């Protein structure tokens, strides 16, 4: 898993750019930047401070890449912070070394970003609106892009200039394709009939007390108040629903939509009111055989809308002068008004689209109305009861019955649960936290726990089991199995070691195996990339010393499950390039070069990090966020 992450991050320098771009376009607004002043920084590099917000934002970006890989949040957060610091170190170094990106480069880069494209082409409008939505000037944004570009320039100048010589490639294949010949036998775990003695069991029990600990447990009684439950009890009659429906009609109506166009005859220094009116009347007459939009384009003094045929878009009540609005209200679809006076001059108005408002009939929304009604009625009850719940459970700290009676609630009970996990209501961490609070452990009612804004719980201790060590009897079977397994393994290992000694003093594996009735397996030309034998054995074989002076190297490897393999390594042959490898020689050279380049870059980054003044004040990044 971790290698996947490393592979994904390495070389993927795009991340920096993503971050540079992602910051402005993520959902967080400017207030994050402003709030940052009030809190202590989480980390700092030189005189640059990072706040929790920065880390959270970096984490969001980072997490998107690895979503679905099942990496836990804490690991990702720590890595995101680490990356943030590394990038800053790199950026400061790039600045110190005088690296710059030219305006042209930044421009070219921005123009190729998908964010700003409409129909596959850079769109100035979109660029501006996206930036202004983040209250960011183009200069600030370009500066960020330039930073990302010089970091990329720096990284690529190191990591992409790595090379591999023919010698490097040859030695790589020599070791990668190395072949080892060996044979081996497997010593299985013996089946033990003898039971371990009571002394042995007892000794194991005493020595491994940690294994047999149980966690602290508690069970609680609780009353709960929930908006839903109260809503279910609200009394509903047809009349009440109808009244509510009438009251809330807006909720069940869609407003009328009117799209309008106008032609303006402005009153100006040169055109007095009369002249404007005359022009308007003349135009109105012309409309008898002329298109409204065309005329608007020709004569309207509202130059902004003239081009689009006088279109003013959707009409919102309350945004225009009264005379204008009244006129609009009276018009039918397609009809043109008489000249209407406003402070601008005279208007001819036309309604170009009219979708009448609609109110859904009561019967069709009855279920919805009922739900809303219940909720509305329940809300006030919920808040009143919530206050009473808090008061009464505090005043009667030694029982829940009083408050349950007063509020008509039932007292429920849970099974035992621990601090870490529970079922039912105890699945909620807030409940578990309250249950293990001092006040509850001492036998009092808890303070009201807000499970959600519509669900409140008060609980008290029913029964409590402190952390304990399980009695020997209840764990005896497990200990016996454990001891048997250990013994069997020990015996297998002893036998393997005897075989090894015999082999080292010159016995052949074939002879020994025949005596012990074991199977000899022989493998020739085995390479690291093969998978015929268990990994543990393969690793041990390739880690074993090469045979000296014709004498095989003997090794033991523990296989999964505890059986032991005894192997005799007879021959090591340096690897050569296969025909297949030769065909891919260019690719291999490139890959090795890339690995060298990347290593150089990492070494450089590590050096810069050592030299930089880095402080991380909060090792557990984002603790607060995980509490949600």
């Amino acid at each position, binding site marked *: 898993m971790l290698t996947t992450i490393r592979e994904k991050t390495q070389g993927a320098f795009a991340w920096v750019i993503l971050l540079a771009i992602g910051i402005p376009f993520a959902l967080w607004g400017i207030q994050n930047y402003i709030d940052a002043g009030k809190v202590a920084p989480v980390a700092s590099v030189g005189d640059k401070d990072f706040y929790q917000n920065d880390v959270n934002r970096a984490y969001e970006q980072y997490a998107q890449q690895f979503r679905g890989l099942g990496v836990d949040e804490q690991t990702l957060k720590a890595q995101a912070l680490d990356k943030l610091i590394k990038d800053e170190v790199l950026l400061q170094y790039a600045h110190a070394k005088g*690296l710059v990106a030219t305006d042209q480069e930044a421009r070219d880069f921005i123009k190729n970003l998908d964010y700003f494209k409409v129909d596959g082409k850079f769109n100035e409008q979109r660029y501006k609106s996206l930036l202004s939505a983040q209250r960011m000037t183009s200069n600030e944004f370009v500066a960020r892009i330039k930073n990302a570009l010089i970091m990329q320039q720096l990284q690529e100048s190191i990591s992409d*200039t790595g090379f591999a010589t023919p010698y490097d490639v040859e030695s790589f294949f020599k070791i990668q394709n190395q072949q080892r010949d060996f044979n081996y036998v497997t010593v299985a775990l013996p089946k033990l009939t003898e039971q371990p003695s009571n002394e042995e069991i007892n000794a194991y029990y005493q020595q491994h007390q940690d294994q047999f600990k149980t966690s602290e447990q508690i069970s609680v009684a609780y009353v709960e108040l929930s908006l839903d439950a109260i809503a279910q009890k609200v009394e509903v009659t047809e009349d009440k629903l109808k009244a509510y429906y009438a009251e809330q009609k807006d909720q069940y109506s869609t407003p009328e939509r009117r799209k309008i166009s106008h032609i303006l005859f402005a009153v100006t220094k040169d055109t007095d009111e009369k002249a404007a009116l005359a022009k308007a009347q003349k135009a109105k007459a012309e409309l008898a055989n002329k298109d409204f939009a065309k005329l608007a384009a020709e004569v309207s003094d509202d130059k902004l809308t003239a081009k689009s045929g006088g279109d003013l878009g959707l009409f919102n009540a309350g945004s225009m002068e009264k005379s204008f609005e009244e006129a609009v209200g009276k018009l039918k679809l397609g009809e043109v008004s008489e000249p209407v006076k406003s402070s601008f001059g005279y208007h001819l108005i036309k309604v170009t689209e009219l979708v009448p408002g609609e109110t859904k009939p009561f019967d069709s929304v009855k279920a919805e109305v009922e739900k809303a009604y219940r909720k509305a009625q329940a809300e006030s009850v919920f808040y009143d009861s919530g206050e009473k719940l808090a008061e009464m459970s505090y005043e009667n700290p030694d029982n829940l019955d009083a408050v349950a009676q007063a509020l008509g609630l039932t007292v429920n009970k849970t099974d035992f649960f621990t601090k870490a996990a529970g079922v039912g209501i105890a699945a909620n961490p807030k409940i578990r936290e309250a249950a293990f609070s001092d006040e509850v452990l001492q036998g009092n009612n808890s303070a009201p726990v807000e499970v959600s804004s519509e669900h409140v719980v008060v609980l008290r201790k029913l029964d409590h089991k402190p952390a304990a060590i399980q009695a020997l009897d209840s764990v005896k079977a497990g200990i016996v199995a454990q001891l048997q397994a250990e013994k069997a393994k020990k015996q297998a290992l002893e036998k393997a070691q005897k075989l090894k*000694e015999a082999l080292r003093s010159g016995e052949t594996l074939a002879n020994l195996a025949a005596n012990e009735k074991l199977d000899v397996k022989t493998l020739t030309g085995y390479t*690291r990339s093969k998978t015929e034998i268990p990994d543990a054995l393969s690793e041990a074989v390739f*880690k074993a010393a090469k045979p000296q002076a014709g004498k095989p190297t003997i090794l033991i490897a523990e296989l999964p499950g505890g059986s032991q393999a005894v192997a005799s390594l007879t021959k090591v042959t340096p690897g050569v390039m296969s025909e297949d490898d030769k065909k891919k020689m260019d690719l291999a050279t490139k890959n090795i070069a890339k690995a060298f380049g990347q290593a150089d870059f990492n070494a450089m980054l590590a050096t810069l990090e050592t030299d930089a003044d880095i402080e991380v004040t909060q090792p557990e990044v984002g603790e607060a966020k995980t509490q949600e």
Partner: protein
Amino acid sequence: MAIYDSEEEQLEAVKAWWKENGTSTIVGVAVGIALIAGWNYWRTHQQEKTSEASNIYSQLVKSVEANNPGAVEPLSKRLQAEFGGTSYAAYSGLQQAKLKVQKGDLAGAKAVLQEVIGQSNKELSHIARLRLVRLMLATGEYEQGLQLINEVDPAVKAGFSASYDELAGDLYVAMDRIDEARTAYQNALNSGGQSPLLKIKLDDLTVPEPVPVAQPVKDSK
């Protein structure tokens, strides 16, 4: 400061002060303005210069990417001549060395890297040195390679020490000095070496167990 009784007195005081200090004030302000202007000019000049270097280097990188080594040489020469000492000059050296290796001109690549070592800041100089030694490994100049590594003050190696140690290990392997190679690889691993090959190379040099003598050896594992 004295407290003046009337506005006239104040005015008189100001005039007197100006008579005494006027010239030096004017000169001071003028010098200040000149300094600021000069500084701005110098900075603009520097910025233009680095912009140009950056621009040339970008062209160079594009030529490398477009597999057009012919165009790289003149650009690189220009960077060395006009912008020597900038990071861009050093980067162009690294680019050139890579191209030369790809063409099989190891000697040429060595010369370029030598130059980068001489003129660069310490991080780039480490990188160029490591690459130069790797070339020496390929051309059989093992002793010289070891010497180049040993020249470096261990105190300033910092993040590069694992790379140096691993390379030293490779040199020792080539010279068949296996014990020293093993130590070098082990050092590389201890200083956090991450190269995937490193562990394999070290495992390949495992010391054989001592040959059993007359008395049976008790071996636990």
